[in-house]
């Protein structure tokens, strides 16, 4: 691996990211999968970094899941997107940040479509006006929320209590970075670092002390793939894609996986249990899996938040071995206590993959 070669490519794919005043839109599904991640984004940006990040309860789905499952036409999606932009305009913002990778891709695709076909934009403006009497300005800047954490990664590192370093050996932890397909594969220049060697998560890992693992199936889909999962008969494809990735990364012995997509951490995490049940194989050491995190969770750990406040008890794969490597304190007894300190019940523990 020639690191300088990657640096050269990264320098070709840098995007302008304003330092403040963002209109934030959440994902449809992230709060169900890893519920503290979006909460942590607002906590870090507003609370820790003192940024102006606004959101509104009137925001809806962007239509991306239905669009990529081929169940609604693009014109419908674009009208939904237009409504989101109208909400941003009404709130007085011009920097738009999406929590969901598919939304980010959807917004990028819509803006590019309008740039190529201005008559479509006119039509969508008419649709929106007829549907809900709203008007909109297009965002001046469009970002994914991982772009913002990337932008502020050094500030987070400075304020951090922990680094992604093995406290016993002093060696950087080996982190696989997995980028959502809709981040830059459609429009490489919209993503930090481009499509082939994205830097958005790699930059965070490096700034926080870890070492990025490149492996042959790095670019491969996590397994979600929309129709691979949402069409029930296709779920074998979903898990086989995930299996392919783990087989490929196994020789590199990663300590963890960091992701920036709603679906990726879910499928990379949950399918490890299914693979273990189906094949008897686990990919971490001593019968554990490889823990999978969102970038907000990793940022939260670096900043010293309690792992259970970050929602890490909702992970299928045990995160404790990773916390132990860094030296992050946690109370095992508090793992399944809710915010009100009441028991939230314990999941059944599988035999096939070691969990706590």
């Amino acid at each position: 691996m020639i690191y300088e070669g990657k640096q050269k490519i990264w320098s070709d794919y840098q995007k302008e990211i304003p330092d403040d005043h963002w209109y934030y839109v959440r994902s449809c599904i992230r709060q169900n999968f890893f519920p503290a991640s979006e909460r942590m984004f607002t906590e870090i940006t507003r609370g820790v970094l003192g940024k102006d990040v606004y959101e509104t309860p009137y925001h809806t789905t962007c239509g991306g899941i239905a669009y990529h499952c081929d169940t609604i036409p693009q014109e419908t999606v674009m009208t939904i997107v237009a409504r989101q932009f109208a909400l941003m305009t009404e709130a007085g913002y011009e920097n738009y940040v999406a929590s969901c990778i598919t939304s980010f891709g959807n917004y990028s695709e819509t803006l590019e479509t309008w740039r190529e076909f201005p008559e479509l934009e006119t039509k969508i403006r008419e649709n929106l006006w007829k549907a809900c009497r709203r008007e909109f300005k297009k965002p001046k800047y469009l970002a994914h929320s991982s772009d913002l954490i990337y932008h502020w990664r050094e500030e987070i590192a400075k304020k951090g209590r922990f680094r992604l370093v093995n406290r016993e050996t002093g060696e950087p932890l080996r982190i696989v970075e997995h980028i959502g397909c809709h981040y830059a594969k459609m429009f490489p220049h919209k993503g930090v670092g481009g499509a082939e060697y994205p830097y958005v998560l790699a930059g965070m890992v490096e700034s926080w002390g870890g070492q990025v693992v490149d492996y042959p199936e790095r670019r491969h889909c996590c397994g979600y793939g929309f129709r691979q999962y949402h069409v029930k008969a296709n779920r074998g494809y979903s898990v086989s894609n995930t299996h392919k990735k783990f087989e490929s990364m196994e020789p590199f012995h990663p300590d963890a996986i960091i992701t920036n997509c709603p679906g990726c951490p879910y499928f990379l995490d949950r399918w490890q249990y299914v693979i273990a049940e189906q094949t008897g194989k686990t990919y971490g050491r001593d019968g554990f899996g490889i823990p999978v995190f969102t970038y907000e969770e990793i940022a939260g750990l670096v900043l010293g938040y309690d792992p259970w406040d970050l929602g890490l008890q909702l992970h299928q794969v045990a995160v404790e071995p990773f916390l132990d490597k860094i030296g992050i304190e946690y109370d095992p007894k508090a793992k399944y206590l809710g915010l009100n300190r009441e028991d939230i019940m314990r999941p059944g523990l599988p035999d096939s993959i070691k969990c706590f």
Partner: protein
Amino acid sequence: MKNIVIIGGGVAGMEAARQLLALGYTPIIVEKANALGGHVASWYRLFPDMTPASEIISRLKKEIAPANVFTGTKVISISREKGDYSLTLDNGVSILAGAVLFATGFKVFDASKKEEYGYGVYDRVITNRDLEAWLSGGEDKRISAPKAIGFVHCVGSRDLKAGNSQCSKVCCTTAIKQAIEMKEKFPKAEIYCFYMDLRLFGKKYEDFYINAQRDFGVHFIRGRVSEVGETIDGRLQVKAEDTLSGKPLKVQVDNLVLMSGMVCNQSVSELVRQARLDIDDDGFLRSRNNIFDILESNRPGIFYAGACTGTKTVPETLAEARAAALEIHNYLQNG
């Protein structure tokens, strides 16, 4: 007798000089590199007869000895002056020429632009040019007893996303040549050529292709490589589609050779602007007519030879250079 300036000392410039000498002129060659020979000088052998490139270069150098040659020198300005051309070189020399021959050649496509192939990122991804240098006896630690080698055709050629829609003409046959050469050096190595379609138009090219399959066991896979990754032991995982069997495939190789194509030589664009020469859609110099006046520019007294007007093989380049010399002779005689 009026001066004739040849810009470019590759095989086109040298062969034109040789013919002009035979016609009684003493041409002036201006070559920006420190030695004559251009791209061919860095090549090992030439298809289809495996002719050593050094033989061609040595012969040309010997036969153009009487010409005036400036190496390590650039033309920094050119302007029309009463039917002639005034050229200034970066060594301070000024020349008034009755005719100017552009033999400025091409650039090799920068393979790192095709990011998915990993040139400049993964250690063992090399180019046709790198391999040729190694075959010529150069050192290259990236090549070490390979058990499997892949060749990717059309890297930067016939590729709108790379900004080059034209076929580079030589890459298919060069890949076959290099595949055979590697098989000769490493008989047990498996060799895969990933191609869109094979353009084997020249004399003996088809025989060459059949030999590669029949006598050397080279695997030809019709399909584009989609991505390349590096394994834990530094080998390369290549993903491609086999469009004949209709299946995706994945192979591991020790070296992946990217057949970088020819692109226009933009280093002469300032000179082209000063001389008010037309540029074609593909970035190469535009001939006055692509059938009858292929060696003539849109400006009187400025002629073209070789790959400055488009991709060419070495025999085509040499033939054009000879013809250009005759065109210049006729122009000066009749002018």
